[in-house]
């Protein structure tokens, strides 16, 4: 009885309110903007080569708690040997397992959806290295000298083309795929080329000369491509950041840098070559091609060991720098966009990057 009376009351009151509200917004529906928020951060830990101890750590931004080895707890088996790179694209996460020679495709909770492998003509397996994505496709480099495309719906590796030995990072810009062909295992005779492929067919367009031993590649929204080459670690060439012009494809040296990431057309890089006494934390405006700062850590925070990786959260602008001594579990330092330390949390062995999960 009481319930019916209550419901009648609700019905009657809404019957009076609704006519008034609907009058005001006759033409457009109400659109509520749900702000994009970073919910969590996955940290990919490389592990030690041959030790099968690559892991994924998960950091919850709100509760500030860490779950180590998410993959094992979700899937009941280990991630595998030597995780090299990770990509979160669409609703899936892709991890390149260089040691285990396969690509793990997971959902955003870490549940494995499929494991991808691909074979050479001689039945040996391709060795996945780094990812990039564009226009619904995921591109992957294979350390034994190839670049391939993954269809994100069927989760199959499609076209695979040879590019040169030991390709590392790659990016898509100007409808082309730019891949760093390091030939790193042929040290000291390392490679000097960035291979450029057609983004649809993967046919080779050209090869661009850069400083020897190119590793890192990324692009800005204008189509300029940035490359970091290791050089010969300071004997005749330092770790060098170069820019490939979007139109002329000419290469210009920008400055010394060892690793980098890009967020909203700002490059965040770290220069930490072997014989350098101090580490530089660089902020560079990629749109206007100018240096913003040589030390973006503004509160004097010093990493315990040394920087291992750098990534920036595109939603908050927070900078995630991994600290590692390569023998014990690393730590992830979170800096605000003003360069002040927000928090620090423990990750696994040899972190290679932070990858962000948002609510969108």
């Amino acid at each position, binding site marked *: 009885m009481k319930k019916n009376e209550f419901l009648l009351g609700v019905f009657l009151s809404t019957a009076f309110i609704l006519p008034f509200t609907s009058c005001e917004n006759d033409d457009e529906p109400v659109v509520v903007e749900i702000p994009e928020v970073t919910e969590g951060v996955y940290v990919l830990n490389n592990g030690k080569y*041959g*030790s099968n*101890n690559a892991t994924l750590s998960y950091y919850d931004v709100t509760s500030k708690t860490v779950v180590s080895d998410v993959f094992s707890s979700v899937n009941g*088996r280990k991630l*595998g040997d030597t995780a090299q790179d990770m990509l979160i694209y669409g609703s899936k996460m892709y991890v390149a397992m260089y040691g*285990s020679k396969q690509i793990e495709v997971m959902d955003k909770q870490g549940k494995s959806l499929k494991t991808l492998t691909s074979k050479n003509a001689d039945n*040996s397996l391709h060795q996945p290295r780094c990812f990039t994505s564009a226009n619904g496709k995921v591109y992957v480099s294979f350390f034994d000298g190839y670049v391939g495309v993954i269809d994100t719906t069927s989760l199959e590796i499609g076209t695979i083309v040879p590019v040169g030995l030991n390709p590392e990072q790659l990016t898509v810009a100007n409808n082309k795929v730019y891949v760093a062909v390091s030939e790193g*295992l042929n040290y000291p005779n390392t490679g000097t080329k960035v291979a450029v492929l057609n983004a649809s067919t993967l046919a080779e367009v050209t090869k661009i000369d850069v400083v020897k031993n190119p590793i890192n590649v990324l692009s800005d929204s204008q189509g300029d491509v940035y490359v970091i080459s290791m050089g010969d670690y300071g004997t005749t060439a330092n770790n060098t950041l170069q820019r490939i012009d979007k139109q002329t494809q000419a290469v210009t040296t920008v400055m010394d840098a060892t*690793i980098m990431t890009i967020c909203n057309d700002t490059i965040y890089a770290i220069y930490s070559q072997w014989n350098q006494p101090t580490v530089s934390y660089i902020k560079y405006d990629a749109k206007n091609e100018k240096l913003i700062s040589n030390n973006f850590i503004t509160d004097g925070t010093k990493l315990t060991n040394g920087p291992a990786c750098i990534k920036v959260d595109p939603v908050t602008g927070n900078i995630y720098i991994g600290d590692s001594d390569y*023998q014990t579990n690393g730590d992830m330092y979170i800096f605000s966009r003003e360069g002040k330390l927000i928090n620090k949390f423990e990750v696994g062995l040899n972190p290679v990057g932070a990858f962000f999960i948002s609510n969108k």
Partner: protein
Amino acid sequence: MRHRDLNGVEVVERARPVVNREGAPIQVMNRDEMLRLGMQELSEVVRRFSGVTIKDYGGIGGLKTVSVRSLGAQHTAVSYDGITISDAQSGQVDISRYSLDNVEQVVLSIGQTDNIFQTARMYASAGALQIETSRPGFAQRNYTLEGQVKTGSFGYINPSFRYGQKISKRVSATAQTDWMRADGNYPFTLVNGTLREEQKRLNSDINSWRGEANVYADLHQAGQLMFKAYYFDSERGLPGSVSLYNPEARERMWDRNFFTQARYENNLSRAWSVKGLLKYNYAYNRYQDINNKYTGGRQDDRYTQKEYYGSGALKYTPTDFLTYSFSTDLFVNTLDATIPESPYPTRYTSLSVLAAQYQDSRLTLTGSLLGTFITERVKTGDRPADRKRVSPALSGSWRILEDENIRIRASFKDIFRVPTFNDLYYLRIGNTSLRPERATQYNAGVTWSGTPFPFVSYLRLSADGYYNRVHDKIVVLPSLSFAKMMNLGEVSIKGVDINMETGLPVSKQLSLQLAGTYTWQKAIDITDPSKKNYKHQIPYTPEHSGTASLTAETPWLNIGYLLTAVGDRYALPQNIRENRISGYIEQGISANRTFALGNTSVRLQGEIINLGNINYEVIQYYPMPGRSFRVSLKINY
């Protein structure tokens, strides 16, 4: 007065060191014990000693190195009939290469042994594993023949042949050869979270052959002379660590080793003795990895090492209680390598030792001073600084009661190891500014031997507590760009070694021997308090380990049982669950019988290894074979 020439007595057994009397811990295993326990490999003998850790990469052809009291394999010298086996490139010796077939005695000494009449090089390590071969005995005729065939699981077969000839009253010679091959593709269970998979070890084959020839000349007053030539040739697959999900193992290794050595000893008078040794060593190693990630589809590295070695020692015993010795060694090591930027180093080493010893029935005191000078030349690049160092060692043992064989002992040794050629010159990682890695050893212990009960024929007990410090430990320091060798470690090692041996002659038909060892080690990294592995146990060092063995001899059959227990260890510097390798217990049983058929003796032996069928790991992700068998047949004429 007529006189009669007595037939000379041939002493063919080696003098066994009096284990309990020495000032520093020493352990001995002789041929009888090895045969009783059915041991076929040198690593099986070494496992029975306390205070050692063996790094075993598994399989019949797998690499096995010895580390004494957690100091590392580079601090342990291995010698073959008095001359150190060396590898200037890696600094460690693979003991899987040396056959036990002609071995008379294996001695492990920690610190400095009381036998001061040694080469200077035997003073230059924290510990030494001495392998001594047997000399032929010609009791029945002027020649001896021995043929043996061994076979076992995983396609293992090992025929060998040994021939001894008495050439004259003073000169005899031996020649022996053996060939060994195995498939090595043993099954193992791979545990991955909730998954359990039966897999086979791949690319685990080995094919090797060995040849050795010795000439012994007894020149009476003019001394004794011994020549040896040795050749070893092998090809093996390297299975690598088990890689989860898509294992591909295509690494291969070839080794060729030839050495020749000459030894001369002479007791010039009651007070003076002299010893001289010469050795030439050639070692070739080829490593190949077939993988499309390399230019040309493969990595193919070839290394050639040569060593020229000479040593002279003088012993002076002025009274019954005092002995002095002086030894000096000179040797040259070279390395040629096909890897890029190889500097072709040549290392000249000069070692000199002055030692003194006082010994009576109750007290032994030994002191020595080792002087080292090393200089190195390279064809390209930087060369390391010359090394000069004086290293002291002091030890003593005292029989505290006159009528009871109970002794206390204490020893100290300050020693170092120089960086290996790999540490100095390896492509990109090598660092010519490396300093030597130093080790300081302190040991105190008590030994007792006697026959406390009537049913016991002998009982020997020893217990030692020790403290070692490693300074400037050479480790690889990785960084964002690449890795480099650095003097970056400080390790503190505390431990206890306990040994027990007893013989129980039960009846005329049955005789038992029981032995056990126990080692406790706390080897912790104390380099940097800000590091996450500060005061953590260093990798591959179990805190607890031990062995127990029981042998029973009867007229019909001899049986040996051996148990090895090793506690948890960590594969990486941080002592966390993820890095932990489970402890294990491995058991083996062997039975043998010797038949006499006229002038020939035939010995049959069978063993079951790893009775519990556990795929335990010594090195992480290098599983050991499960239960397997070995059978051998030996004919002596």
